[in-house]
């Protein structure tokens, strides 16, 4: 095997640095924030918030695995964040359902008054 190919294989097998995970998380957070800012449908806004929550979870788990002194606490926080996100989805979709029942729309720029 030529040395260039061996070097290429070594590069492919090397471990991924921590920055890679963090930057993927940052980009995913930014995409979720963009969607939450521009979309009109409230359900899609919920999905984008879920994307942001998952990006933060990815960063937490990456820190828990890479930092020697963290003791893996980030994984515990990630479980708590998942539980809070599940509760948020349940309540948020219930609110969207109630809004749709009274207003016949879930577009966030048409539901701009908090009165029935």
């Amino acid at each position, binding site marked *: 095997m030529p040395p260039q190919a061996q070097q290429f294989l070594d590069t492919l097998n090397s471990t991924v640095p921590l920055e890679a995970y963090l930057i993927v998380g940052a980009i995913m957070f930014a995409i979720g924030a963009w969607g939450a800012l521009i979309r009109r449908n409230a359900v899609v806004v919920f*999905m984008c918030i879920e994307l942001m929550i998952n990006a933060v979870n990815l960063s937490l788990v990456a820190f*828990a695995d890479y930092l020697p002194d963290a003791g893996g606490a980030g994984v515990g926080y990630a479980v708590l964040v998942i539980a809070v996100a599940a509760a948020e989805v349940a309540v948020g979709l*219930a609110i969207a359902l109630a809004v749709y029942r009274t207003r016949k729309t879930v577009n966030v720029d048409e539901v701009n008054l908090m009165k029935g």
Partner: protein
Amino acid sequence: MIVAFVFLASMTLMCALGVVLSRNVVHSALFMSGSFLGISGFFVMLNAPALAAFQVLIYVGAVTVVILFGIMFTQRPQVRRFRTIINRQTWSGLVVTIGVGAFLGYVLSIQDWSATGPGNGPQGPGPLGEILLGVGGAPPIFGLLFEVISILLLVAVVAAIVVSRRKTGEGVDRGVEE
């Protein structure tokens, strides 16, 4: 590792873009579950297989189904031109978002992470359970947080039922005579 990382990162980020830019709401939900699958693959790479199982069960299973039910209940058939799904803040929102992403990327990459290495986290369900309960050297605050999360889930379920319950005589489903 690099190959798996590049595959998972492209899958996650492309599905995230698909959530934002898809004109069909159901496609957005399916893209969202694809993105969650990519994140669970990252969890496997980060030596947290129990958390990856939680991710698949809770997000890809439960949250996606709940959101699909929400779509089923709230969407009318509508014109799906691109201008109708976004509001007027597309470009200002894009500017803000690129600013946020660039700031986060800069702050995270300017730091010197060379002293860190993989393999420090809890490797299996047993150590993860000890962390969640705050025993075995984990911060003891996790015991309290665990209980608070239990109460929160109960309150959220009750609140979801109360908020979405239809009072008698209010609102009629389409096509259903009362």
